[in-house]
C-alpha cells in the first residue's frame, strides 16, 4: 500500500496534523456526523431510562400494559429517531470522507502539475500513481470511521456521566470510580492494540508479497522447472510465518485479554454493587436497571476505537507519501515574464550545463544554434544526455532556462507556455490518452475540422487503420480502449503533431524495431516536415541520420562530433564506430 516503513511516534503526530489540515473540505460534514452520532447516544440514554422505568413500574408497582403506554410510545419514537440518526451519521461521515479524498487528489494533482514531469519521473510513475490512487483511497476509513470514533470515545462516556449524576450520584460515582480505567484502557489500546494490528497485517502482507512475487515470476519458474520446489517452499514459508506469527500473537492478544477482562470486571462490579444496594433498599430498581443498561455502553466507544486502529495506521502511512509531494520545493518562475515575440528567428543554447541532483549525469557546456528549418539529429549512447538536452530545450528544467536563448531572449525571461506552444513533441512511447482518436488528435489543434483530422492522418499514414477501428475516429483509446500496435500509436502521435503544425517538431525516434513499412513512413514524413519547419530528432535509425542536415554526437553530456553523415563518417569518430558496428557495407 505504501512505500514507507511504519512512521514513528513523532512522525505520526506530524502526519495526523497534516491529515487534519487537509480535511477542511469535509470537516463541517464530519462535525455534523459526529453531532448526529452523539445525539444518537443521548437518545440511547433516554431510551434506557424509559425501558427501566417501564419495567420497574410493571414489576414493582403492579402496573398494566395500558398504564405504561405513555412510556412505550415515546420509546418507539426514540428508537425510530435513533435508527434515522445512526444511518444519517454514518452516511454523512462517509460522504465527508469522499469530499476530503477528492479534494486531496485534486490538490496533489495540481501540485504535481506545478512540480513538472521530472519530479514524478524521479519518484517513479508507479509509486506516484499508487499514492494518487490507492493512497488517497486509504484515507477513507481514517476520516469516515477512525476520527468519529475518537470523538465518540470522549463524548459518549462524558454524556453518560453527566446524565447519570443528577439521577443517582452514587451510581455516577461508580462510573467515575471506574473512569480512571479509561486512560488506562486508552494506553493499552493505543500502544498495544496498535502493535498487534500492525504485526498481524505486516505478517500477512509479507506472506502475500512472497506469494504474488512468485506468481508474477511463474513463467520463469516453469522454465527453470522449479514450480514443484517452489510449491513446497510456499507451503513451508506459509507455515513458518504461521508459527512465528502465532507466537507473537499469543503475547499480543494478552493485552486485548486484559482489556476484555477489565471491561467485564467493571460491568460485573457495577452489577454487584447495584445488586446489593437494591437488596438493602438504598436504590430503586429503575435507577439500578438504567445503570446496568448503560454500563456496557459506557465502555463500548473505547472498544470500538480499538477496532479502527488499522484504519488509522493505513491513513497515516498513506499520508507520509502525500506530505512528501505537498511539501516538495517548487521552483517558481521569476515574476517578470514576457511573451515570446514571433516569428521565431533563432534558437540557441549558450554554455548550457545541467546536472541532476545526486548524480553525475547531465550536460556540460553545450553550445548550439539551430536554423529555422531543416532536420537536426542527435545520437549517442544511452545516458549520454540526449533526453536531458531535449527536456532543457522544452523548458522542463527551470535551472537551465537562462542558458537557452530564443530570439535573443533567455527562456527564463519568457512565459514558458508561450514557448512550448510552438513545439510539437513525440516521445519514444507516446501517450495516447483515454479518449477518442479524434479527441486525441484535437489535442494538437482544438478546433480542427474532421477534414483537417483526416488530412493529418493521411500525412502520418494513419487514416487507413483508423478507419478500420470499430468506431473510426470516435474509437476510445488508451489502456482500457482499443489495443493498438506500437507502430499505430506512433502514427497517431505523428498525426497529432502534424495537426499542431508547430514551427518546431521534436521527436525521440522509436528505437523498437517497428515493421519496416512504419519506419519508412515515419522517416519520409519527418523529412518532408523538415522542409519548412525545424525538426530535432533523437535518432536511432540509419536512414534518419543519413537524411539529417546536421548531426550532433553526444557523449557523457558533451557534444563530441558535429556535421552531416558523410563528413562524420569520414572522420572515423564515434559515429563511424556506431555505424560501423552494424553495417560494414562501405
Amino acid at each position: 500500500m505504501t512505500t514507507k516503513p511504519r512512521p514513528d511516534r513523532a512522525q505520526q503526530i506530524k502526519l495526523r496534523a497534516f491529515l487534519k489540515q487537509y480535511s477542511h473540505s469535509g470537516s463541517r460534514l464530519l462535525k455534523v456526523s459526529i453531532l448526529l452520532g452523539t445525539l444518537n447516544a443521548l437518545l440511547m440514554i433516554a431510551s434506557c431510562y424509559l425501558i427501566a422505568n417501564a419495567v420497574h413500574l410493571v414489576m414493582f408497582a403492579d402496573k398494566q400494559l395500558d398504564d405504561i403506554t405513555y412510556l412505550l410510545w415515546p420509546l418507539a419514537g426514540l428508537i425510530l429517531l435513533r435508527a434515522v440518526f445512526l444511518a444519517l451519521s454514518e452516511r454523512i461521515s462517509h460522504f465527508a470522507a469522499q469530499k476530503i479524498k477528492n479534494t486531496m487528489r485534486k490538490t496533489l494533482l495540481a501540485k504535481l502539475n506545478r512540480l513538472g514531469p521530472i519530479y514524478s519521473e524521479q519518484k517513479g510513475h508507479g509509486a506516484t500513481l499508487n499514492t494518487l490512487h490507492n493512497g488517497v483511497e486509504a484515507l477513507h476509513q481514517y476520516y469516515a470511521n477512525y476520527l468519529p470514533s475518537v470523538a465518540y470515545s470522549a463524548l459518549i462516556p462524558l454524556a453518560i456521566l453527566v446524565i447519570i449524576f443528577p439521577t443517582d450520584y452514587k451510581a455516577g460515582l461508580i462510573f467515575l470510580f471506574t473512569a480512571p480505567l479509561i486512560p488506562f484502557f486508552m494506553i493499552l489500546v493505543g500502544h498495544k492494540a496498535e502493535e498487534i494490528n500492525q504485526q498481524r497485517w505486516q505478517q500477512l502482507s509479507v506472506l502475500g508479497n512472497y506469494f504474488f512475487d512468485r506468481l508474477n515470476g511463474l513463467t520463469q519458474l516453469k522454465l527453470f522447472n522449479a514450480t514443484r520446489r517452489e510449491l513446497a517452499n510456499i507451503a513451508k514459508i506459509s507455515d513458518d510465518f504461521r508459527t512465528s506469527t502465532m507466537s507473537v500473537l499469543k503475547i499480543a492478544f494478552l493485552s486485548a485479554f486484559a482489556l476484555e477482562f477489565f471491561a467485564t470486571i467493571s460491568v460485573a462490579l457495577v452489577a454487584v454493587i447495584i445488586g446489593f444496594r437494591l437488596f438493602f433498599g438504598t436504590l430503586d430498581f429503575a435507577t439500578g436497571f438504567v445503570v446496568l443498561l448503560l454500563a456496557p455502553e459506557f465502555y463500548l466507544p473505547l472498544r470500538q476505537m480499538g477496532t479502527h486502529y488499522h484504519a488509522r495506521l493505513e491513513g497515516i502511512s498513506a499520508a507520509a507519501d502525500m506530505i512528501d509531494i505537498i511539501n516538495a520545493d517548487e521552483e517558481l518562475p521569476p515574476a517578470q515574464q514576457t511573451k515570446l515575440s514571433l516569428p521565431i528567428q533563432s534558437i540557441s543554447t549558450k554554455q548550457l550545463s545541467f546536472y541532476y541532483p545526486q548524480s553525475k549525469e547531465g550536460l556540460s557546456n553545450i553550445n548550439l544554434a539551430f536554423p529555422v528549418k531543416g532536420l537536426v539529429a542527435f545520437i549517442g549512447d544511452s545516458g549520454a544526455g540526449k533526453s536531458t538536452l531535449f527536456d532543457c530545450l522544452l523548458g522542463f528544467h527551470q535551472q537551465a532556462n537562462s542558458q537557452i536563448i530564443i530570439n535573443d531572449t533567455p527562456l527564463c525571461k519568457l512565459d514558458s507556455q508561450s514557448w512550448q506552444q510552438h513545439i510539437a513533441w513525440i516521445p519514444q512511447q507516446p501517450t495516447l490518452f483515454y479518449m477518442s482518436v479524434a479527441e486525441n488528435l484535437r489535442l494538437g489543434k482544438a478546433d480542427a475540422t474532421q477534414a483537417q483530422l483526416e488530412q493529418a492522418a493521411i500525412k502520418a499514414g494513419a487514416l487507413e487503420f483508423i478507419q478500420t477501428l470499430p468506431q473510426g475516429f470516435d474509437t476510445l483509446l488508451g489502456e482500457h480502449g482499443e489495443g493498438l500496435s506500437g507502430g499505430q500509436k506512433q502514427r497517431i502521435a505523428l498525426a497529432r503533431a502534424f495537426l499542431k503544425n508547430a514551427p518546431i517538431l521534436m521527436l525521440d525516434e522509436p528505437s523498437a524495431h517497428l515493421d519496416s513499412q512504419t519506419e519508412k513512413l515515419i522517416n519520409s514524413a519527418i523529412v518532408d516536415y523538415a522542409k519548412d519547419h525545424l525538426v530535432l530528432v533523437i535518432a536511432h535509425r540509419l536512414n534518419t541520420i543519413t537524411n539529417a542536415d546536421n548531426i550532433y554526437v553526444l557523449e557523457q553530456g558533451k557534444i563530441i562530433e558535429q556535421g552531416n553523415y558523410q563528413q562524420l563518417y569520414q572522420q572515423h569518430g564515434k559515429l563511424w564506430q556506431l555505424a560501423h558496428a552494424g553495417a560494414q557495407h562501405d
Partner: protein
Amino acid sequence: MTNFIRLLKLCKPHAGMLLLGAFLSTLTVLANVGLLAISGWFLAAMAAAGIASVHMNYFTPAGVIRFLAIVRTASRYGERLITHNATFLLLSEIRVSVFATLSKLNNVDLAMSRSADLVSRMQDDVDALDTFYLNVLLPIIVALISIPVVMLFMSAYNPNVALLCFSSLMIVGVVVPAFLGHKFNKTAAQERVQSALLRAQLSDSLKGARELALYQASAQQRNQCNKASELYNQHIQKRHGALANSDGFTLLITQLTMLGSIIILVPLVSSAEIANVELAMMSLFVLASFETVLNLPNAFIQLPSALSAAARIFELEDKLSDDVDKPTVDVKNLPLGINFTDIDYCYNTQNSALSKVNITIKAKQKIALVGPSGSGKSTLINLLSGLWPVQHGQIELLSEQGSININQLSTDNRYELLTIVAQQHHIFDGTLAQNLRYAMPTASDEALIRACEQAQLGSWLAQLPDGLKTRLGTAGRTVSQGQARRIAIAQALLRNSAIVVLDEPTESLDNQTKHAVIDTVMNVMADKTIITITHDPQLLSTMDQVIWLENGEVRAVNSHQSLLKTEPDYISLVTRF
C-alpha cells in the same frame, strides 16, 4: 452452492482446528448472552428480595456471573488464537492450491494476451479468500449453533417472545445482508471499472505530463481526473449509503424486538403467569441474543464476492486436463539439434503469428533470430519451451539416436535440456543466492560466484556488503536493467543444458560489458546449441547463422556478413544508434 462446497473441501484438512475455533467463538457468544440475562435477573431478584425483605441466596447467581465472566474472557482469548491459526492454515492451503493449478496450466490457458491481468486478478481473488474462514465461515457456524441454543432457552420461558426474536434475528442476520451481498456483488463490478478508469486517467496525466504541457492540455486532463475521482467516489458512496441504511435498520429491528417482547410479557406479569423478575431478565436476554448474529451481516455481504472469487479459481482448476501425455522417451543432456517443421500459429482466427516455418538447427550451432517486433520470434521460442502448445507442425530434437518429437518428453526432461533467458526477466524477492539457485538448486556458493564472474557481475558482487546474501526484488536492493540481464545470464550459465535460448541478452549492457559477456558466453557455451533473439551487430557477428523473420515467415537464412552485403533492409534493421 457447488463452489461453496468445494471451498469447504479445501478446508477439510484443517477441519479440527476450524471447528475448535468455531466452538470457542460460540462459547464466547453464549457466555456473553448468559451473562447479560443472568445479571438482569440477579438485579431484579435482589430488588424484589429487598422489597419483600426476604433472605436471598445471592451466592449462587453471583458465582454464576463470575464463572460466565471468566468463561467469556478466557474463551475469547482462546478463540482469537485458534481462529487466527486456522485462518493462516487455510490461507496457506488456498495459496498452495492456486499456485499448483497455475503452474500446471500452460501460459495460453492462463491468459492469451495479458498475463499481468490474470496475476492481478488472482491477487484480488486470493485476497478475498484469505479471510473466508474468519469473516464468512466462522460467523455462519457460530450462528448455526448458538441461535438454536438461545432459542431453546428463550422458548422455555415464552415461545411467543422466542418466535418474535427468531424472526428478527433472521431479518437482521440473513435477509438484509443477503440482499446487500447480492447487490454489492453487482455494483462491485462497476466499482472496479470506475477504479480502473480513474487509474487510467491518473496514469495518463503522469506518463503524458510532457505532452499535456506542450499541448497546453494539463488543466483539461486534471479536470478529467477530478471527474473520474468524483464518479468513482459516488459509486463508493452508494455502497456506504446502503450499509448505513442497513445499520440503522438493524438498530431499529433490534430495539423494536425488545420493545415487542416487553409488550408480550407485561400482561403475563400482570396476570402473574410469569414471575416479575423474569421481565427484566427476558428484556436483557432478547437484547443480548442479537450477539449471535453480530458478525453474520458481514459474512453474508462478503459471501457472494468470496464465492465469485472461488468460482474464478476453480474455473482455472477445471481447465486442467487429466490426460497428461505419457513421456515415452528420455533424451540425454548431450548436444542436440532442433527441427521446426511446418509450424503455424494463430492467436485467433484473424491473426496468424507464424505460418509455414521450417527451420533446422544443428547440434552446437549458434543461430540468431532477427526481425521487427511482431514478426514471430517470441512465439517460436514459446512453442519450443512448451509454454504455448504447438497448434500445427512439429518440433523435433535431433540427437545421435535420431529425431524425437519434443511433445514426447516429460516436462522434467524438457527443462533439463532447455534453458531460456526470457526478455522479461523476473527478479524474485529473495537473496541473490536464492535467485541464482532457482536455476540450479544444488549449486555451491563457489559455483554461484563463478557464474556471476562469468556474467560480468564480479565487481558488483564484490562491493555488495552482504555478497550472495544481498536481498533483491521488491523488498530488497533494486537492480538496474543491465544487472538483471546479467543475473539472468548467470542463471543460464549455471544450468548446463544442451540448448540455450537467449532473448536480447545484451540489451541495456554498456559496450565493454557487452564484449566481455559475449566472449564468456561463447566460450563457456561452446558445445551448446544456442538460439539468440537479438539485433546487436556485435552478437550477430559471432553467430553461425541468422534466421530473419518477417510477418511470421522466414524471410532469409544466411550468415550475418552475407546478409549485410546483399540486403539493404537488413542493414537498417540491425543498425541502431
